[in-house]
C-alpha cells in the first residue's frame, strides 16, 4: 500500500516534470485535469486531505468525518492543522481537499469558487454559527444595561488590564479567526482595545476565571460551543445585523450574522472524490452533537480519534444516513 502510494507520487512528479518540460512550469491549480495524486474513488488507501482549523468544534467535526472515512470507507486521511484562510489557499495547490466547517468568508468564496474555480460548496454542516461579544453572567446582573453596546463606554474602565493601554480590553482569540472587532470599535466609537489571547484555550481559561473569581471580562466567542453548558454567559447586543451591512470589512458597524456553517471542497475532490466526496457532502449534524464531541476532546482529555469513535458507536442512526449508497 505504501509502496503503491509512493510509486503514484513518483509517477505524478515525473508527469509534472515532463509537462513542465515545454512551456515552463505551472503550479497545480487543483482542477480535475491535473495528473498528480488524484484520490481514487473506489480503491482503498486513497488519500483525503482535510484541513483542521484551530477550534474544538471544527476539530470535532473533522474527527468524526475522518474516522468514518478511514474506518468505514477505507480511505487514508491526512489532517492538516491550518488557519482558516490558509486552508483555502491549499485548494489551489492540491494540499487541501476538504474544509469541514466554513464560517461565511464570502470574499474567499468569490475568489476561490467564482473567480479561480478551484473550490466548490458541499452543503451545510447542519450547525448554526454565531459570533458575538460576551461577558460573564454575573456582570449582566450587577451592572444594569451593560449588555447594550451603547453603555459599554460607561463601563469600559471595568475591563482595563495591563495590556489594554488605558482602554477597556476586548479579548480576542486566534489571530486567524473571522474578525470585525477593529472596525466595530472604530465605527461605534467604543473606548475599547482588542487584545489577542492567541487561542480558543486562552479564551476559555479567561472566561472560566472571570466566572469563578468574579473578574470583569469582555471577550469574543461563538456558538456552537460547549462552554455555554458550563458557564453562564451574557451576549452584548450590537446594532442588529442587516443583509450586506458587513460587505465592506472596514465599514462594519453591525453585529455578526447567524451563519449556516458549510463545507467547502476542492473542485478536483468534488469531481473525482467518489464515495469520500459523497460522505463529506452528506455530513450534517446538530450543534448538540458537535458540542458533545468537542467537550470530550477539550475537557474530558480524550484524543479527537477516541472522542469521535465514542460518538460514532452511540449514534449509528445519525451517521448511517450520511454513508454513500
Amino acid at each position, binding site marked *: 500500500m505504501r509502496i503503491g502510494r*509512493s510509486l503514484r*507520487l513518483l509517477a505524478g512528479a515525473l508527469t509534472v516534470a515532463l509537462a513542465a518540460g515545454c512551456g515552463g512550469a505551472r503550479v497545480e491549480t487543483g482542477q480535475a485535469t491535473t495528473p498528480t495524486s488524484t484520490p481514487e474513488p473506489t480503491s482503498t488507501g486513497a488519500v483525503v486531505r482535510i484541513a483542521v482549523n484551530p477550534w474544538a468544534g471544527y476539530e470535532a467535526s473533522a474527527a468524526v468525518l475522518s474516522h468514518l472515512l478511514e474506518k468505514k470507507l477505507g480511505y487514508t486521511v491526512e489532517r492538516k492543522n491550518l488557519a*482558516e484562510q490558509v486552508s483555502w489557499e491549499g485548494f489551489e495547490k492540491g*494540499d487541501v481537499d476538504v474544509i469541514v466547517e466554513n464560517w461565511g468568508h464570502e470574499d474567499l468564496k468569490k475568489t476561490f469558487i467564482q473567480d479561480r474555480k478551484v473550490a466548490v460548496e458541499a452543503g451545510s454542516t447542519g450547525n448554526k454559527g454565531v459570533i458575538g461579544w460576551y461577558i460573564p453572567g454575573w456582570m449582566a446582573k450587577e451592572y444594569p444595561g451593560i449588555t447594550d453596546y451603547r453603555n459599554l463606554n460607561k463601563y469600559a474602565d471595568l475591563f482595563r488590564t*495591563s495590556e489594554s493601554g488605558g482602554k477597556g480590553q476586548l479579548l480576542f482569540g486566534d489571530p*486567524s479567526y473571522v474578525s470585525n472587532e477593529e472596525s466595530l470599535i472604530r465605527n461605534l466609537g467604543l473606548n475599547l482595545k482588542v487584545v489577542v489571547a492567541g*487561542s480558543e484555550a486562552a479564551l476559555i481559561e479567561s472566561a472560566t476565571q472571570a466566572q469563578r473569581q468574579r473578574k470583569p471580562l469582555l471577550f469574543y466567542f461563538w456558538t456552537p460551543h460547549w462552554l455555554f453548558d458550563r458557564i453562564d454567559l451574557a451576549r452584548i447586543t450590537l446594532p442588529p445585523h442587516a443583509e450586506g451591512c458587513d460587505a465592506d470589512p472596514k465599514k462594519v458597524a453591525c453585529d455578526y450574522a447567524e451563519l449556516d456553517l458549510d463545507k467547502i471542497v476542492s473542485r478536483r475532490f468534488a469531481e473525482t472524490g467518489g464515495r469520500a466526496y459523497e460522505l463529506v457532502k452528506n455530513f450534517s449534524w446538530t450543534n448538540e452533537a458537535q458540542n458533545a464531541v468537542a467537550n470530550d476532546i477539550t475537557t474530558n482529555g480524550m484524543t479527537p480519534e477516541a472522542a469521535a469513535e465514542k460518538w460514532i458507536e452511540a449514534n449509528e442512526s445519525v451517521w448511517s444516513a450520511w454513508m454513500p449508497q
Partner: protein
Amino acid sequence: MTASPVRTAPAPPVLSESTGVPAVRDRWRTPAAAVVATVAAYLLFRGSATLPHDDEAAPFRLLGDLREWVDANRNASPVFLFLVNYVRLFAGAVNDGLALLLRELGWAGTAGLATGIGWLAGGPRTAATALAGFCAFGVLGVWPQSADTLALVLASVLLSLLLGLPLGVWAGRSVRLRRLLDPVLDVMQIMPTFAYLAPMVLFFQIGPAAAVVATTIYAIAPAIRITALAVERVSPSAVEASASLGATRWQTLRTVHLPLARPTIALAVGQTVMMALSMVVIAALIAAPGLGAGIVTGLSRADVGLMLPSGVALVVMAVVLDRIVTASARSAVPARSTLVGAAALTLCGVAASGLLGNGFPPGWTLHLAGPVNEAVTWAKFSWYGVTDAVRNLTTEALLNPLQEVLTGSPWWLVAGVALAVAWRGAGPRNAVVAVCCLLATAPLGLWQHTMETLTTVLVGTALALAAGFTLGVASALSPRFSAALRPLLDAAQTMPSFVYLLPALALFGASRFTAVLAGVVYALPPVARLVQDGIGAVSPSAVEAARSCGSTEWQVLWKVRLPLARGAILLAANQGVVMTLAMVVVGGLVGGGGLGYDVVSGFAQRADFGMGLAAGVATVLVGIALDRITRGAAGRPARKVSRRFPGKTGKKRIA
C-alpha cells in the same frame, strides 16, 4: 496615563550606558545637557508627530495588490513559468525524495543508518548518542513528524551547501566578491527567521517546498561566511609552495586550500545544520510538516502537552546532528574496520525495520500529553498569584511607561536620540545608517508598531544583559560555578528558538511579558559566555598588579577586569540586542504584539498580507538599526571574527 512618563524617559539610561569608561568630569557635561534637552523636548512636544498606526496605510494596500498580481500571474508570467516555479518544483522534489527514503527505511532503518553514520563520524559514543536520540523520537510518539523534519533539514542543508560552499570558496579567494557579499550576509544574519516567511509565501506559496526554499536561504549565510574565512586563512606559504611547484589554481584549491580548511568547513556545515533546524520549525507557519507543526499547533491552542513531545524531540535532534557534525570535523579518514562496523549497524537497522514494519512499535510509546497538561494546570493554578504579579509588575513598571514614551514622542525626537546614542557609541557612519533604517519604518506605515517592538526589545535586552552579566562575572570569578554552568549554556545554545516559548507560555499565558521573557532566556547564554570569556581574557599581570597595590577583589573587578573586558562586554550587548529582537518578533505568536503580531496576522488573514510583508521588512530595518547602534564601539574587525565564528563564542544562531 497611569504612570508618570517623565520618570522613565528612555534617554538617560541609554546615554549613560554608552559613555562607559570613567573619565574627566567634563565628559559628562554634554550628555547631561543632551538628556535635559531630550526630556524638555519630550514634555513640550509629547503627542505631536507620533505617526499613529493605520491598518489601511498605502504601502500595505500596495503590497496586497502585489500579491493579487502574483496570484493572478503565477501561471502566466515568464518569471514564474521559467524560474520561480522550477525552483519550487526542484526544492519540493528534493524534499519529497528524502522524505520518501526515510519513510521507506522506516524508524529502525533510519535509526540504524544514523547510528552507522555516528560510528563513522565519532566512534561508539557518537553512535550511542544517535541511537538514543532516535529511540527518543519513537518513545515520545513523534517519529513520523521527526522524519518529516529530518527530511526538510537534510534537503535544505544539502541545497545550502551545494550553493554555499562553492560560493564560500570563491569568496575566500576573491576580495571583490567578498566585499560584494559581506553586506548581504550581514543583513541575512540579522534578519529574524520570521521575516523570511512572508516573501516566501508570495513567491512559493505554502507547503514543504516553500519551507525548503526559505530554510535554504536562511541557512546559507554561515556556509558562505565560514567557508570563505577558512579558505582565506589557509597559510599563504603553503599556497606559495604549491604554486611554485607548478600546480594550477584548481590543483592548489583541491590539494592545499580544501584539505587545510577542512575542519573549519565542517564547522560551517554544523552551523548550517543548526540554522536550518531552527528555521524549519518556524516554517510550520507556512504549512511545513513535521515537529514544528506540533509546536505551532500547541502554541495556538495553549496546549503544552501537545507541543512538549515535539519540543523535546527537536532538542534531541539538534543534539544528535550537532554531535555527528562536530565529531566528523575532528575525525580523520575512517579505517576499514570502522566502515565495516558502520555498515553492519545500518544493515541491522534495515533488517529490524523489516521485522518491525515502517513505524515505531506503538506499544513502546509514552503518552505524555495527559500528565504534562495536569502538571501545567497545577502549576498555573498554584503559582497564579506569583506569575500574575510578576507579569503585571513588569508590564506596568517597565513595558507600559516605556511604550508610552516611545509611541508618544514625536518621531524626530526618537530619531534624534537614536542618532546621538549611535554617534557617540558607534561613530557617524553607523549612526546615519541606523537612523535611516529606523526612519524607513515610517513610510512603511509601521512607525508605531516599530516603537512597540522597540519597547519589548529594550526591556528584554536590559534584563538579558543584567542577568547574563551577573552570570558571566560570577563564572569568570569562580571556576566551580563556571563548570556547573557550562553544560547548561551548551544545551541552551543548541536549542531552536521556538522551544523557549513553551515554558514561558505555560506559566504566563499570552502577553508581551511572555515574549520578553522568552527573549531574555534566549539571549542569556551567549551574553553570559561573552562576558565570561572577556573577563577571563584580561591579562593576569594587570590583575596581579592591582592586587599588589592593595586593591580588594571588588576593586579589581570594577577598576581592572571590567574596563579591560569592555570590548567583550559591548559585543555581548550587541548579541543580546539582536537575539532578543529575533525572539521578541517570534513572540508575536504568544501575545508579543508589535511587528511580530503583524507578521503572524499577515499569515492568518488575507486582508493583512500587505501589512505582514511590510512588517517583515520593518523587522529587518530595526535589526540593522539596533546592530549598528550597538556595534562600532567593540572595534569592528576583532568583533566580526568572534561574532560570526562559532569556534570562539560557541554556537550561536539568530532565530
